[in-house]
């Protein structure tokens, strides 16, 4: 029963990644990534309760507090502060991105089938999620969205850590702090400049 709920939540997590890929406004995107982290925390609680592991329960509380609440709040505060973030993504390309995401998912599944000999079974969904996080970073053109893509990747790693093998708690907690520091640094850096949505464009010659 627990296993089937965990599977279902895993598929929901994958769907949230696709939702972020297809979303063109920034605020719903941040809300979705918060939802994704909370789903991940629910998975942790379920596995923690069924395997009686206290560290996973602590980790789930940390996940909800930092990834579900703190980081989205920091990002949303940045949106509220500066009007430039209310704009939508310049190009949306929803069908193309979703189809590319699907191809990546299928490729991820096939590749993981080969990798699973070395890494461990059941890691398909985290692996696909990781690739989708890459795709979000590549496909989107503004800094906050790319930070969202980074959070997706971190979520994928955490997910893999729960599903495949037991990571020490201290390592996970360290990653959380890293992530928070990185988001803060990113927001501060973004605040220094006023290019906003198009800030990657200036890198193009």
């Amino acid at each position: 029963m627990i296993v089937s709920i965990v599977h279902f939540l895993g598929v929901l997590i994958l769907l949230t990644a696709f939702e972020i890929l297809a979303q063109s406004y920034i605020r719903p995107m941040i809300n979705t990534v918060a939802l994704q982290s909370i789903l991940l925390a629910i998975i942790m609680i379920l596995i923690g309760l069924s395997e009686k592991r206290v560290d996973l329960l602590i980790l789930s509380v940390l996940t909800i507090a930092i990834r579900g609440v703190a980081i989205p709040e920091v990002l949303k505060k940045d949106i509220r502060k500066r009007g430039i973030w209310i704009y939508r993504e310049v190009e949306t390309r929803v069908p193309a991105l979703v189809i590319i995401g699907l191809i990546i998912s299928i490729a991820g599944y096939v590749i993981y089938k080969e990798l699973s000999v070395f890494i461990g079974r059941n890691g398909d969904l985290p692996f696909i999620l990781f690739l989708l996080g890459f795709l979000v970073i590549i496909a989107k053109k503004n800094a906050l969205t790319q930070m969202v893509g980074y959070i997706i990747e971190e979520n994928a790693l955490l997910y893999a850590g729960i599903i495949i093998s037991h990571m020490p708690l201290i390592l996970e907690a360290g990653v959380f702090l890293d992530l928070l520091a990185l988001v803060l640094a990113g927001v501060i850096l973004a605040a220094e400049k006023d290019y906003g949505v198009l800030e990657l464009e200036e890198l193009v010659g």
Partner: protein
Amino acid sequence: MNLQVVNIIQVLVVATLSPLMAGILKKVEAIVESRKGVSIFQPYYDLAKFFRKELVIPTNAGVVYVLAPIVSFTCYLILPMVLPIVYYNPCPYAPMVDFLGGAFIFGLASFISIIATADVNYYTAIGASRAVTFGSFAEPTLIMVFFGVALITGTNNPFITNHVLARNIQWILSPTHLLMIAAFFMLLLFDTGKIPIESEGLMEFGMIDEGKTMEYSGLLYALSKWGSYMKSFILMSVFLNVFAFPWGLATNTSMQSIIFGIATLIVKMICLILGFVFVEETFAKLRLFKLIDYLTISFLLAILSIISFFIFGGVAY
């Protein structure tokens, strides 16, 4: 009761109850919007009125134009014979087609209505070309849903699918099946022209299905309207009986059992109509060029259902 009689009962159920369901949908929507609304029997009155009206055929219309509503109506009369509508075992003609065969009969109906109306006038041409454009994006989802069903049950037969799903609750709750239901529901909203698509209005920007019937009048209009009610009814009962809620069909050919099957079908369909009303009242109509996004998302759900089948081995524990 003879199986042939059951067969005829299924056809009659589809033909007679389909306008009622359209009327109930309109009535519930009106109640939700705090309106009084028209009677639930209004579609019957409408059909009776259309049958009495004079038949006018445009001068540039060909033979196919006249034949199309009759052929598509016949297709919708054939489909109840091969699908589980009220009786859960195959009727005499059911072994002739599987899911794909049923899709071909649906395809014939829409194909003939498209070629009949493609060049009659400006509005019918808009309707026909839009139906082709968006239909071609909807088709991959349908095929993927059929593949998903075939993966779960090992067959493409709707009756066996119904039996397998009704006996195994763990299939019903597996991510594969839930995603498939979601994809098919989105497709159902598209095919029956409910709100995110709203193909039934007469507004030129969003006109799809209504555009095709623009030039029809009298008997032919009545047939095509009745055909569209029957199409909705058949798709809804396939969704309910094969995918979402495979219980409650008649299990033997006795009179009580068949009446029980019809009654449960009506109850299930009213529940589905409540779902439709929820979607119609909470979502805004999509702009026409956004329909492809919508259909892509349904395709995404269908593909993810198949991927999750391979990742989890399909069955939930």
